[in-house]
């Protein structure tokens, strides 16, 4: 809560000074060598343990955190889903020997890639295994699971899949606004500057790894938007210029890269982050919750892949009433109702905030959902001219 106050104060000062320039370099820089070394030594350590156990005639094992919502806690002070510490141990036996071998071989691949500064998409890693004969993966689902296991195993040392050089297939979301991204040429190492306010009708695309990026900005806040449609509208009308902000298109549940990217803007540039998503259980419980605190499945990486300072701008159930959207709603589907009820019952994040509990209950009571684009009912640009300014005036009232 202290952080929140701080942000608000700073935002106030920023407003006064108008367009203060903020800069941040790559997070990697300071710890890059370090992380690389930690990654390499961690890989070796796991292999050594296996080797020593085997030599002593013991059955070797690997330990990793359990990855599910039942094994996470939420502490608002910490700001993200944290593992409770339930571990699963995989002991080498007939049932696990294949996975065991595949884990070691993928670790070996990671070792090579970290050493050679190369990377493999998850799909490529799957294809690399095709050269392993009997030990090959039959489906990418299998190799993805093993990759998640490896990441879980190394998460205690803050080593992510990206540091091990496994990158997701999908890239991150789109960015426009008062932001300059400083990347470097992978071959020459030369700096490449991308001005996100000079993208015309297009946008900057968040790469799959973002820790090497540097940023410069004069913006005052970040607006993370669920749908491409709304992002296009705001970009077309240069809303980022009028509101002096950075617009991020999440495209559904934000990818790890997008979450990390927004996290770096929030943390490095000290910018507040506001989420603008549909008013339905999916927008709230999946998109926003994952952006802010991470997921149960990837709880071991939430620490670095979420945006604890994010706030929920809208659309809220109350907005439906306040902005006269009652007749622009759709009834909640059974799957929506189940999702909302599940969140109230099982999700430690929503359980921590009475405001969220009442908002979800309100939605369930109303029995309807409203999309971002429902504001078009009052005119195509009602959202730019009326809704967003009105909401931003009361940023303190945003749902946590």
């Amino acid at each position, binding site marked *: 809560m202290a952080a929140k106050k701080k942000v608000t104060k700073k935002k106030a000062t920023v407003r006064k000074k108008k367009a203060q320039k903020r800069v941040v370099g790559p997070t990697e820089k300071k710890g890059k060598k370090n992380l690389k070394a930690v990654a390499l030594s961690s*890989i*070796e350590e796991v*292999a*050594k343990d*296996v*080797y020593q156990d*085997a*030599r002593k*005639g*013991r*059955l*070797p094992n690997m330990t990793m955190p359990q990855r599910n919502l039942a094994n996470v806690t939420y502490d608002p002070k910490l700001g993200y889903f944290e593992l409770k510490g339930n571990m699963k141990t995989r002991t*080498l*036996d*007939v*049932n696990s*020997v*294949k996975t*065991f*071998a*595949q*884990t*070691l*071989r993928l*670790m*070996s691949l990671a*070792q090579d890639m970290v050493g050679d500064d190369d990377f493999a998409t998850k799909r490529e890693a799957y294809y690399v295994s095709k050269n*392993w*004969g*009997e*030990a090959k993966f039959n489906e990418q689902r299998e190799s993805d699971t093993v990759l998640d296991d490896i990441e879980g195993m190394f998460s205690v040392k803050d080593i992510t899949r990206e540091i091990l050089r496994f990158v997701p297939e999908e890239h991150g979301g789109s960015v426009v606004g008062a932001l300059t991204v400083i990347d470097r040429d992978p071959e020459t190492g030369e700096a490449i500057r991308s001005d996100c306010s000079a993208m015309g009708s297009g946008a900057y695309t968040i790469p799959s790894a973002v820790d090497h990026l540097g940023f410069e900005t004069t913006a005052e806040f970040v607006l993370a938007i669920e749908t491409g449609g709304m992002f296009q509208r705001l970009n077309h009308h240069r809303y980022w210029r009028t509101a002096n902000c950075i617009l991020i298109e999440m495209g559904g549940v934000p990818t790890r890269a997008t979450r990390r990217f927004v996290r770096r803007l929030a943390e490095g540039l000290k910018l507040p982050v506001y989420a603008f998503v549909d008013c339905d259980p999916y927008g709230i419980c999946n998109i926003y919750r994952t952006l802010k605190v991470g997921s149960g499945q990837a709880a071991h990486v939430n620490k670095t892949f979420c945006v604890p300072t994010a706030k929920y701008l809208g659309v809220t159930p109350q907005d439906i009433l306040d902005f006269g959207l009652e007749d622009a709603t759709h009834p909640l589907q059974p799957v929506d109702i189940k999702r909302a009820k599940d969140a109230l019952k099982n999700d430690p994040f929503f359980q921590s905030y009475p405001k969220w509990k009442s908002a979800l209950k309100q939605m369930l009571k109303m029995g309807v959902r409203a999309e971002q684009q429902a504001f078009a009912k009052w005119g195509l640009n009602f959202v730019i001219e009326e809704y967003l300014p009105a909401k931003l005036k009361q940023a303190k009232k945003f749902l946590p």
Partner: protein
Amino acid sequence: MADIRKTAWRQAIVAKKAHRTAEQMAQSQREISVSEFFAKNRHLLGFDNPRKALLTTIKEAVDNSLDACEEGGILPEILVEIEQLEEDRFRVAIEDNDPGIVKAQIPNIFGKLLYGSKFHSRRQSRGQQGIGISAAGLYGQMTVGKGPRIWSKTKRGKMHAFEMQMDLTKNKALITKDEEHASWHRKHGTRFEIDIEASYQRGLRSVDDYIKQTAVANPHAEIRYRAPGMEEPRVYERAIKAVPDLPDEIKPHPYGVELGELMKMLRNTNSRWLSGFLQEEFCRVGPKVAKEIIKAAKLGERSYPSRIARDEANNLFRAIQNTKISSPPTNCLSPIGEDRIREGLMKECDADFYAVSTRPPSVYRGNPFQIEVGIAWGKPGVDQLEVDEKGRIAKKKKKRTIDTEDLLGNADEPVRVLRFANRVPLLFQQSGCGFTKAVTQTSWKNYGLSQSKGALPIGSAVILIHMASVWVPFTSEAKEAIAPYPEILKEVKLALQEAGRKLGSHIRKGKKVASEFQKRSYIEKYLPHVGIGLQEILGISNEEREEIVETLRDTMETTRKI
């Protein structure tokens, strides 16, 4: 013209056929000799076709040889030779080391139908009626024209070589040649040789099959066998060096005698009183039981048996059936024995598992009998596994190769049922046999074999069923199938269940081992990759890698329990 003539002719024929006087008929009525009868009805004796004729000839001769040797307390050495003379003509010779046959009896035994020592006795033996071997001679003479040739020598006597012709009308053999030789290549023994019209084939129900099965049920016999196409005789070695105990002869049990036979016995007895007759002629009848029977038949103890035969035999017959008489003694039975069945199967059938069971003697219609069952299961070297003392599992090696045909079928075929009566294999009419019925009525699913309702179970298995009895109830004179008496069916089923339970527990254990083996094959498959992974990460040498994989394999295999 032609039509009219034809019609007249036909009418004449019809008239001739239709109208015969009693006198005319009497002219053509005459006694039919047994030989003549069988010459016309040879299928009844197993000579229906050339292939079967060859088998029956050999079977009858081998049965005789084994019986004769056992009776003389000699370990049988039997030589069977089939020589192809022409496309459809074969010379068959069976030679043994029996005690020999005295000169005077030779023509009777080999030339006369229904002559023998066994028909009248109540003792377990292979042959029963004394028709088989003479019928073979008869068949040869009818098809090729030459009678049988016999060489025989007793221990002390000289060797006689005979050639004979059978007189079909007089049921008699005419000796056409009789030579005496001072010595022979055997100290004692008999050789029977006949040329017959036949055909030789291999496979199921062939002579090969018969010899093999005979070797299974008679592990105390050594059989040498040479068929067309064999360079050297095939030798079925002796596995047990002891002649089976000679079973005792018993008198008939009252329950087993039919009315006609009872009347015949009453007529022919030397006893003068009914009470004496009952006690003398039957087993298990003492003064008390005799009294009870007589009382129930409302007869006098001192009645004349021959009078009763005429007037009150039926009452007596009924009285016998209604009187409680203890079961016949069983010392007249000579089962093969569990050990011998196991030896016999092991010697001729290399299997993964053997189960044997012998039932206690039982009785059907006054005839004692005993059922034995042996099961051989699983082809070694195909998919059988074994566990060593360290707990490792490996494919079982084939113990040895048996150069004769394999009795075990494949795992997806019905099991083979080997049926034996008094140690003689029954090759034909499997489906009509009481033994087969008992097998199909047993629920083999309980014992690890799959089975459709009412069918033989499926599996790589041989089921041997043996019935030892003083009188085996064959369904026909060709001695091919056992009549399904309820008492016999019940005993066979009980024996099958007993052996089946042993098989079942073995198969279940085997299935466990197989699934464990399947799991352990993952170790074989994937453990080397654990080694490769470790080598790549840690940069160990190839030797170190192989060593660590070996150590891990040991650790993994020995920590698993079966």
